[in-house]
């Protein structure tokens, strides 16, 4: 297998669904479409805002817009913003469609291949058919994936995972690397730099989906026991197959991060990667509380997200908020406005040991090619990840 270069092709592994010539070309088109929107259409929103919308608002109110809501009310009437939005939404729909086609074509055989694991598996897979899918997953299909993370279209289905692994690559336009692992890899290198003596023996990844962020921990801490949980069985079936193909040892189990079956104080490191914004106010509190329960003394909780809105220019916040309304991410906005210190305190953590910071992306080489902006539709383009966490 040829190793792809950074920011180019996704790395192939046996779990990733094969594509025909045209299926692959259709997916490549979506990636180019998204890149084009980021490079050539997105910036027009700011241009229109500065040249037209802001001056008109100033004339009417004798001040500039102060909140993302004021910006939104003025921008939604602008033809450029309307066109940008309809294109971005369309690109999202085409992305899922292009990833579904090769999976649908060969669903039975692909599911059989996922189910058939080597006899000597390194890790494990434990499903719980009785686990209830939380309402924040069933209210709408998150980020417009038809059926969301959880739907099983046939018995023993892993199709949602197959579709998701490819779509994540297209969504990030390769900016998370050929293995989609940049968020996990970035936290790993942050840990290695900021906490060089920290050698976690047991690590838990919450809301792991296909395990693309879990794998870097297994690679960086080969002696550690790695667990990863998710509420969605199709994701976990795929994640397990994927990890085995990549030769890493991860124990996947179907559990809700709000209340797991692990013992008190049984982990040194509990992490999540862009999980928090896909939950709810109540669930967020429960999850941080659960992290506190699961960590031993001196243990670390680290959650990666896109940065909070606090202190952000109202126009930037408005655009970053695009996904809340237009990409089925209903908790996106609110989750970016949470008082993290209070969240830590209420969960039982010492708020003085709370940290939040922007950490560099592990893919420094690609950084120069990025837009260096956090903006709707440009996932990973910031070249930085926001982390929030607490030491216990």
């Amino acid at each position, binding site marked *: 297998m040829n190793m792809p270069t950074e920011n180019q092709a996704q790395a192939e592994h046996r779990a990733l669904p094969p594509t025909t010539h045209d299926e692959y070309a259709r997916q490549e088109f979506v990636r180019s479409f998204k890149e084009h929107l980021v490079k050539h259409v997105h910036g027009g929103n700011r241009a229109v805002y500065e040249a037209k919308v802001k001056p008109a608002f100033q004339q009417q109110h004798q001040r500039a817009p102060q909140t993302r809501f004021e910006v939104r009310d003025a921008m939604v009437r602008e*033809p450029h913003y309307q066109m940008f939005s309809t294109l971005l939404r369309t690109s999202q729909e085409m992305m*899922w469609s292009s990833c579904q086609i090769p999976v649908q074509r060969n669903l039975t055989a692909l599911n059989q291949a996922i189910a058939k694991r080597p006899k000597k598996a390194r890790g494990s897979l434990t499903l719980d058919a009785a686990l209830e899918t939380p309402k924040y997953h069933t209210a709408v299909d998150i980020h417009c994936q038809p059926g969301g993370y959880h739907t099983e279209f046939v018995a023993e289905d892993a199709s949602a995972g197959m579709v998701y692994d490819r779509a994540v690559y297209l969504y990030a336009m390769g900016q998370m690397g050929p293995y989609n692992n940049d968020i996990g890899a970035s936290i790993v290198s942050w840990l290695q730099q900021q906490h060089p003596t920290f050698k976690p023996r047991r690590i838990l990844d919450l809301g792991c989906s296909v395990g693309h962020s879990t794998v870097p921990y297994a690679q960086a801490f080969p002696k550690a026991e790695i667990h990863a949980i998710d509420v969605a069985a199709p994701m976990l079936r795929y994640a397990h197959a994927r990890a085995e193909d990549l030769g890493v040892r991860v124990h996947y189990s179907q559990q809700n991060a709000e209340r797991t079956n692990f013992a008190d104080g049984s982990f040194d490191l509990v992490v999540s990667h862009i999980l928090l914004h896909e939950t709810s106010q109540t669930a967020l509190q429960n999850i941080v509380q659960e992290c506190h329960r699961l960590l031993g003394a001196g243990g670390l909780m680290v959650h990666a997200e896109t940065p909070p809105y606090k202190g952000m220019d109202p126009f930037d916040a408005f655009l970053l908020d695009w996904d809340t309304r237009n990409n089925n991410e209903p908790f996106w906005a609110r989750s970016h406005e949470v008082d993290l210190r209070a969240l830590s305190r209420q969960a039982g953590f010492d708020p003085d040991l709370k940290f939040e910071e922007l950490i560099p992306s592990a893919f420094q080489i690609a950084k120069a090619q990025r837009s260096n902006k956090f903006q709707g539709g440009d996932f990973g383009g910031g070249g930085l990840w926001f982390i929030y966490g607490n030491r216990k």
Partner: protein
Amino acid sequence: MSTPGKLKRKAKGERPYFFDDPNIDRVVSMVMGLAGEVAVLHDRLDTLERLVAQHGGPARAALDTYRPDATVAASRAAWRESFLGEVLRIVEIEVEAMSSGDTQPYEQAIAAVENNGRARRQKK
């Protein structure tokens, strides 16, 4: 309810429309769907031409298993980039006009050539 074995095609949740007339959003979606299929055809033809040059007549199976190497992939990505630039030209044009100061109403241009910059008298 979903049909067994059939992946759902629409994501649950109300779809947002951005224009006053949602049919505009629908047409955009169709145009981009069409653009996607044109890009697929372009890649297929490109593959065919490269295989013809290589083998002097490819089998259909050879076409289906063809994967572009890094150079070919980059040249295709560049083609798609310029193709999208053409299809989506209309979106960029207004922004370009604004940043280059090309914002004069067309009536002013007529006035300039017709009567030395004085606006024509509006008819009732």
